[in-house]
């Protein structure tokens, strides 16, 4: 049976599923409820000098009938007095000794940092997370992402915190920066015990096209918010990978960004994360989603024979290389399973208009099953991605696997295109229709303007 217990730089929790510092961790009530439901840890809603919030705080990106595939907020750190939060931290820790309670903090001066770190440790926090990521509201006051974007300032504050912190310190990073490893390295230089990422991405989630104001609307006006939810997961995964692979970062990672099921968690762990933090999914579906996450992760680990999280943490990292190290001799082409094809012809139109004109339609209009033109197929995957039927279009390997040649090797050998009309151009011998054929082709009803 898989052992889900997690140890992130000394912060222990019964499983790697933590709640991120956000509205779901605003109070001891919510966190107790979450622990009771099965969550392993919680990063308390950021503490500091309490703020005043606006009304109308969240915005959402819906995709067709799917709600909140992207989500943003303009809410600030806690608006509750510190003493209430400290009292509740103590209460939660009394009831849940094995669970991780991490205090997220954001203050300005060295004195404030020293004071609040001592306060939360005294209250029983198992760790501290430094909020250097919030991209709205706080950064204008010189905090949040304003710190995360200045590695020197970031390092200095980490050093202040480490002067007094008796528990592990996690530095939370903002993605609103061109190279995520710079603040990560600064965190390490300052003595941080771990990093967590990503915080939210500066965003405008949409615009009300009648009132001419972005969402969320506050009395006819708006401001940029912080973007999160399933839509940001790919960005988060890439940044986690960047930090995990960088030899000068070398810190335990708590992965954040669009995690909402066991599979997302596995992906973050495979890219180097030790724990994951969840917010949007809980704001959408409640704490109950842990009922799917825990058994899903357990089943995966049991099937793979992984006994602990450490057994597969970072396991995908060796397989992430620079583009120039990929094998140019590897060749796949698409294959359509005719017995599964339902004849929507999305693969045809996607390839025809959006890719490489490598799919043909039957000359018999009654036969709606398209066919792959093997010699034109570059193996881009697009058809298999748009196909609405499971396992109908698959990508089949066509090379014999014996040859291996990378761009890097070709460059070293001086065997790469160098001039605009170089005969080594990759697409030189690819078939492309003549431009005017586009106009001559018979179009379906309604397709002509």
């Amino acid at each position: 049976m898989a052992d889900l217990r997690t140890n992130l730089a000394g912060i222990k929790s019964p499983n790697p599923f933590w709640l991120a510092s956000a509205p779901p961790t605003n109070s001891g009530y919510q966190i107790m409820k979450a622990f009771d439901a099965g969550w392993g840890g919680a990063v308390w809603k950021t503490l500091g000098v309490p703020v005043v919030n606006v009304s109308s705080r969240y915005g959402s990106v819906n995709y067709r009938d799917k709600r909140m595939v992207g989500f943003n907020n303009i809410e600030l750190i806690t608006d509750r007095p510190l003493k209430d939060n400290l009292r509740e931290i103590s209460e939660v820790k009394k009831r849940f000794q094995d669970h991780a309670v991490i205090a997220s903090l954001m203050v300005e001066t060295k004195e404030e940092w020293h004071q609040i770190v001592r306060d939360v440790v005294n209250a029983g926090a198992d760790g501290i997370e430094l909020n250097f990521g919030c991209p709205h509201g706080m950064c204008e006051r010189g905090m949040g992402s304003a710190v995360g974007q200045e590695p020197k300032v970031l390092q200095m504050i980490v050093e202040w915190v480490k002067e007094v912190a008796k528990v592990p310190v996690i530095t939370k990073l903002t993605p609103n920066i061109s190279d995520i490893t710079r603040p990560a390295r600064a965190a390490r230089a300052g003595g941080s015990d771990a990093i967590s990422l990503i915080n939210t991405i500066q965003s405008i989630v949409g615009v009300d096209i009648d009132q001419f104001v972005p969402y969320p609307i506050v009395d006819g006006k708006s401001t940029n918010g912080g973007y999160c939810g399933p839509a940001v997961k790919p960005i988060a995964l890439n940044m986690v990978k960047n930090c995990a692979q960088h030899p000068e970062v070398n810190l335990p990672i708590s992965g954040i960004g669009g995690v909402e099921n066991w599979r997302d968690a596995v992906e973050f762990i495979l890219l180097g994360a030790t724990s994951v933090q969840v917010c949007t999914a809980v704001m959408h579906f409640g704490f109950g989603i842990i009922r799917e996450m825990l058994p899903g992760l357990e089943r995966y680990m049991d099937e793979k024979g992984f006994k602990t999280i450490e057994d597969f943490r970072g396991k995908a990292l060796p397989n992430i290389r620079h583009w120039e190290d990929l094998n140019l001799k590897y060749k796949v082409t698409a294959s359509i399973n005719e017995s599964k094809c339902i004849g929507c012809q999305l693969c045809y139109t996607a390839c025809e208009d959006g890719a490489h004109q490598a799919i043909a339609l039957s000359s018999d209009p009654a036969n709606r099953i398209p066919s792959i033109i093997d010699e034109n197929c570059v193996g881009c995957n697009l058809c298999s991605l748009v196909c609405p039927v499971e396992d109908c279009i698959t990508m089949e390997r066509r090379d014999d696997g014996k040859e291996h040649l990378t761009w890097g090797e070709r460059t070293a050998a001086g065997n790469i295109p160098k001039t605009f009309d170089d005969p080594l151009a990759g697409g030189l011998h690819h078939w492309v229709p003549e431009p005017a054929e586009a106009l001559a082709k018979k179009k379906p009803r309604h397709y002509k303007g």
Partner: protein
Amino acid sequence: MAEYKKPTTEAEFAANFHPKKPLMTDTEAYYESSRCLYCYDAPCITACPTGIDIPTFIRQINNDNKDGAAKTIYDSNWMGHACGNVCPTEELCEGACVYNHSDVKPIEIGRLQAHATDKVIRSKKKLFRTGKDTGKKVAVIGAGPAGVSCACELRMLGHAVDIYEAREKPSGLCVYGVAPYKLTNEEAVDEVTYLQEQFGFNVHYSKPVTGRADFEKLEKDYDAVFIGIGLGATSALGIPGEEKQGVMGALEFVEVLRNKHQATPAGNRVIVLGGGNTAMDAASESCRMGAESVTIAYRRGPEEMGAYSFEFDLAKKSGAKALFNVTPMEFLGDGNVTGVKFIRNSSVNGKLEVIPGSEFVEPCDMVLLGTGQGKQVKLLEQVPGLTLDHKGRIVVNEQFQTTNAKYFTAGDAMNGGVEVVNAAAEARRAAHGIDGYLKK
């Protein structure tokens, strides 16, 4: 039996005749439209006789542009709302949906179509601009689906249109002949009213064209005439006892039902003769009127029925039973019909042969003839030079022009009786035929 209690109030009638395809709410339409795959060269378009750009209107619904969706629908079919409700979508667009091939429920195209058109009809939104006035005038006989579709298209082309309608309401069978659980009179009339406001054609109600003199006047006053008269009354079977009380045409029964609702005189033991869609409707309706027993009697076997299988299924689900391979010989009774005398027959190589001595009597108090409408041959004979085929259908060329050059036609009078959507498709093309003729 009696799955349905006899309705005595308007509320009970409405419950028994609950719409088969109720209007979608915005939420329902949003979720359903989200499912559309947006197929390339979509098979649903090909399956639609009017060729509506279905994936586009569904995408427009999904992207909160319902006016645009309605316009896309009407761009191809002036009976968009009626068709959304009454079309046999199971056989047409929805039957062609690719989801059928992966055992996923096909998109509810008919209901989405009705949803979008209902929105603009109720908002009275102006979607179309009529063509520049050509100074030409066209008379349209009949305000049914064919006549109204032709009128809209003629107005788009800039011709003035007067419709002469024999009855008090427009929309033909949509008001007088369609099963009440498919489309209400209000919905049918509202669509025509909406179109009339868009296009400014005139409709003269209760103005039947009855004889040579009327045709002569139309020929004199108008540059072209469109015949959209549909079919006539249910044909007589020509067997003894047909005049008895309680024996009536299925279509005539529906007409009363659509207008009198629960006050419609309906039978307790009903026999419906015929195997077509009208017979199935009459059976389903009789069940919903609380009949104790409803029996569909058809001369041939189930596989030879003209009705769509889903219509037969609906009749069975409503509580009707079926008798196959029986031929009615006589309606029995003393004034009121009390039974039908049948004889059994077998079908040998497609030919019916009676089985001697197999007569039997099926008791009943009402008989509905779903055995087909007659053609209005007598009336059509008043148009000089008009040719009818052996089935009484008006003969036309590719432009839907009859053998009298001034007359054009479409719909049931020409095709012998198909769907509303066929009439809408043909009449639109006929309008272009008329346009070509007027420009000569």
